[in-house]
């Protein structure tokens, strides 16, 4: 395991207690990436999300979930039964020294254990409790249950994805949990700024439904301004013209798909011109494209017939090239557009290698070291990286309860026997 030298991180002095399930994993991880001391608190036996695949070696095993590895690194791990009196007492002892607490329980649950914000702020007025739920702490849906697909639906995201004549779609790999966790981290840190100025903590109420409103940018403003409802358009881009014309986004190529759009603006004009030159170099640019006056080309005014006529020879041209060829040429020719990459092609992208993005993380328990996506950003002062792999079940019980809280080891074995830890 990489040595825990997170003191180089920007948030090194701060401690986080992380009670979150997958809806909030990323919140704690981001604070951990920034150097905070994050303690993941699992129920005895381990968090339910350890059953989420994929798995190391493809064999389901709570200690080998890659979902767990990916989103719970930079955290230490302890087990604790909050529903036992002794468990609540231990939690309170930890909470006294905590700067942040993150939870994803249904609204009211922590209050029912006398561990809600009111109780926590009495023992630690500085603490910031970030409560992450599908819909928020109050309101008509606050007690609704939701997994990724319900959040994606109720936020509106799904209404914008999919073919018009088939059902709305989500992204196959769940997105709502990570959107929510990362926006929750922003909220927690805004509250942190206020706390450091005033000494006062507060309760941060994060709604996943509201977080996901950002995933579709401005689609809703078409309704707000002009009473037009943007809808799913399959593989076509809408909303860029005032004629209602739509542009193809995904083009079949030799080994998959390319993302290329006929854009307007200066960058669009440059791209369109460069593409026609590239096509021409292979004898595949029709005369009308070569003659086109790109300077006067106004994407907002373009009609569907005009777009269709332009797209036909382009489709023909793209069908004969590979993703790798396209990527190389768009970079060299300074065109807009990218291949539709899979994880395999992402690993092959030289940009990551050059920026040292992949980070080798040791897993001694697996006798393996694995390349992880590394820090989310580069700081001139302070580091942002993976300091430690995700914890095994109860891996740091001794460290946290024994060394930190000073619980004697005889008592620890007793707590274990009673199912408290």
């Amino acid at each position, binding site marked *: 395991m990489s040595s825990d030298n997170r003191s180089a991180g920007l948030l090194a002095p701060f401690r986080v207690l992380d009670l979150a399930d997958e809806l909030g994993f990323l919140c704690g991880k981001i604070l951990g990436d920034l150097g905070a001391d994050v303690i993941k608190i699992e129920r005895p036996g381990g968090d339910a999300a350890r059953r989420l695949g994929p798995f190391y*070696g493809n064999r389901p095993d709570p200690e080998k979930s890659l979902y767990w590895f990916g989103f719970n690194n930079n955290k230490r791990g302890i087990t604790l039964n909050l529903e036992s009196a002794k468990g609540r007492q231990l939690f309170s002892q930890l909470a006294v020294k905590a700067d942040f607490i993150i939870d994803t329980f249904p609204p009211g649950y922590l209050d029912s254990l006398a561990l809600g914000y009111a109780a926590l702020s009495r023992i630690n007025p500085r603490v910031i409790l970030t409560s992450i739920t599908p819909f928020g702490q109050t309101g008509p849906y606050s007690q609704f249950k939701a997994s990724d697909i319900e959040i994606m639906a*109720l936020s509106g995201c799904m209404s914008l994805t999919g073919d018009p004549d088939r059902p709305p779609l989500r992204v196959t*790999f769940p997105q709502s949990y990570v959107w929510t966790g990362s926006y929750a981290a922003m*909220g927690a840190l805004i509250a942190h700024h206020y706390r450091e100025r005033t000494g006062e903590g507060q309760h941060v109420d994060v709604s996943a439904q509201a977080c996901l409103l950002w995933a579709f940018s401005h689609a809703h403003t078409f*309704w*707000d301004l002009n009473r037009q409802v943007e809808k799913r358009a399959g593989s076509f881009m809408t909303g860029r013209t005032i004629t209602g014309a739509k542009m193809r986004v995904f083009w079949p190529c030799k080994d998959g798909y390319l993302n290329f759009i006929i854009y307007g603006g200066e960058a669009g004009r440059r791209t369109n011109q460069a593409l026609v030159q590239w096509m021409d170099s292979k004898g595949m640019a029709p005369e009308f494209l070569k003659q086109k006056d790109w300077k006067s080309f106004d994407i907002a005014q373009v009609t569907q017939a005009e777009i269709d006529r332009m797209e036909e020879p382009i489709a023909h041209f793209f069908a004969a090239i590979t993703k790798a060829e396209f990527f190389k040429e768009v970079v060299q020719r300074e065109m807009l557009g990218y291949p539709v990459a899979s994880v395999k092609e992402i690993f092959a992208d030289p940009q*990551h290698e050059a920026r040292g993005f992949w980070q080798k993380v040791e897993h001694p328990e697996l006798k393996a070291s694995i390349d992880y*996506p590394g820090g989310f950003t580069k700081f001139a002062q302070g580091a942002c990286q993976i300091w430690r792999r995700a914890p095994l079940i109860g891996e740091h019980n001794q460290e946290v309860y024994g060394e930190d809280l000073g619980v004697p080891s005889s008592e620890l074995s007793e707590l274990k026997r009673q199912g408290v830890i």
Partner: protein
Amino acid sequence: MEALKGVKIVEFAAFAAGPAVGKHLADHGATVVHVESRVRPDGFRTHYPPYKDNIHGLNRSGLFALCNNDKLDITLNLKKAPKATELAKKIAAWADVVIENFSPGTMARLGIDYEALKQAKPELIMLSTSNLGQSGPHAHHAGFGSQLSSLAGFTHLTGYPGGSPQILYGPYIDYIAVAYGAAAILAALDYRRRTGRGNYIDTAQYETGLQYLAPILLDYKVNGAVADRNANRDPQAAPHGAYPCEGDDNWCVLSVHTEGEWRTFCEAMGSPAWSADKKFATHAARKENENDLDRRIGEWTCGFTPREIMEKLQDAGIRAGVVNTMKDVYTDPQLAQRPQWVELEHPEIGKMHYQRPPFLLSKTPPGPSKRDPLLAEHNDYFYKELLGLSEEEYRQLVEEQVIY
């Protein structure tokens, strides 16, 4: 809007990736100055519908409004070196944080990269947010977030197996980088408070996007598995999908994750005969017959509205929801209760619904409180009152079209 009161931010930024970071900080009370020029206004003002009543105009953009409420707007023509460069440095020296999202290399070319601005303000924090990062062989390749979402793997994961990838609306990945960029700035502010040191932050939207896909990146690395799109299917749940409802293009979603939930779900449907068929008896069996399962559930859901399905199933403890449209999000009872939207009057747009943060702070409630600014609206106020230029200096710079 007390949380970030006193924090001063300047944006040499346009479109979403930079300004949306500033928006979130402005929502919590930071003073955020959006720098544009009449030579090149923010691209959202000029190139991205919607415009109010479909009439193009610099102050009629819905997308600009969304990303820029509660900011001051000034103009500075950076092409007018050296005076504009000097003025830019002066503005940076006033600020705690500079946000920029030009293509890498542009700030250096303009003479206002971090090294230059640091001379004016040693403890400056600067966020450069770009597509691919400030370094590396592709750093200078410009692109839009909508396409970067494909390079970063998201569209490959969207659509039907064997079919075309499907679009994710707008510059999806930009707003991922927004959350990370804001977190980075807030961490840097904390670090500066404790150490006195400024910071330079290089955020690549590409790298922030890949954070979201960590498990499947690991799956490729350790198992050689290439994650693919599989429509609405999920290995953990069956049924799991979107189903048609009463009316035109109305949809609900629902998902069943355990055998207990399956029994409850069947009861909620009124225990139709087909649901007792052994081909649906276990999770494994339902996965095997999922097309048939989906068809039968669709036959049931289409007799109800999406809201009826959601309420009926949620009451029974089953996960379900309405597929809200872009119209529905303004009236959804939960979003309305929060409330998610703040209606403010804009001189050219009229009533606009500005977006509140997705997190509410109990002691320092957020904005929006002010509509997005018109181009150059705060030149007078900012340059004279906040930056302290004399009337004469200001008039001169306006005349020379430095402030332009």
